[in-house]
């Protein structure tokens, strides 16, 4: 699949899964989609290993856009990207956008075949400038 993949990273497994459900319903299955929520013990938090696995699951040669909720999700996502193989690192973008709306709009943009930079930009237009 040549469309950009979407990864949703929340402190809460339920938020991550629910946001992914909304993307699937609203955008369909034309974009690779994966999510990671909660820490390694199943509590609230984010897990670098799980984020890396989600990036792998949603991998597309067009790249992957990551939507995050709060600070630790962003920091852990950036860490996960840095731990990827060198040829993949440059094809993953952490978006500064609200997690649910950002995931839906990014996926909608990705489903039309837009490149990663455009997917990221469209999601980030949702954030106050």
């Amino acid at each position, binding site marked *: 699949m040549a469309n950009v993949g979407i990864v949703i990273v929340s*402190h809460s497994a339920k938020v991550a899964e629910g946001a992914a459900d909304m993307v699937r319903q609203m955008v369909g299955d034309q974009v690779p989609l994966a999510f990671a929520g909660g*820490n*390694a*013990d199943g*509590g*609230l*938090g*984010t*897990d*670098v*290993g799980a984020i890396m696995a989600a990036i792998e699951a949603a991998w597309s040669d067009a790249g992957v856009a990551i939507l995050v909720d*709060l*600070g*630790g999700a962003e*920091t*852990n996502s*950036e*860490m996960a990207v840095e*731990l990827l193989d060198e040829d993949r690192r440059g094809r993953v973008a952490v978006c500064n956008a609200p997690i649910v709306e950002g995931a839906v709009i990014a996926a909608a943009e990705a489903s039309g075949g837009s490149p990663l930079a455009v997917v990221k930009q469209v999601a980030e237009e949702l954030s106050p400038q």
Partner: protein
Amino acid sequence: MTAAPPADLIARLIEAVAATVTAHADELTALDQAIGDGDHGLNMRRGFDAVLAERDATAAKPLPDALKAIGMTLVMKVGGASGPLYGTLIMTMGKELAAGATPADAVRAFGAAIDALKARGKSEPGQKTMLDVLVPVHAALVADPRADVAAIAAAAADATIPMKAIRGRASFLGDRSIGHMDPGARSSSLIIAAVAGVLEG
């Protein structure tokens, strides 16, 4: 730090840091409940429990590799932003140190690790974070390698109380973050005191 630290020294450092994190986990969580999401103590204890579980394997490595292993364990196990932050700090020290490093090399590696931490957290001193402890401790070590870093770190952590948070979860509180010690500054100060206690002991 000696030129070639014996495995025993690495093991004692791991034990001392894990012990202080465990002993103060409830305090760190209480600080984080005031201005964060209330998981700093739990997260740090989970991370350092994992580091402690790998103590023997880690202590058998040369110091740079041991630091990289400890940092990676924290990245993978902590579960909050402090995982990548402490992980980046410690992994960068490992990358910057050669085997057979002198104390001056260690201070220089510490400085490089602080720069990596600033990039990871997109933060600078004065924003009520762990940098407000690490930066003054590093400056003191540059000026005097025998500086009393435990006392300097404790005073620096206290100095975060009147600061207003600009980065991290506490920044959402704005002025309401004023009057509370930053939990990351406190955990940094505890870890520095534990490391200094072993190295000076």
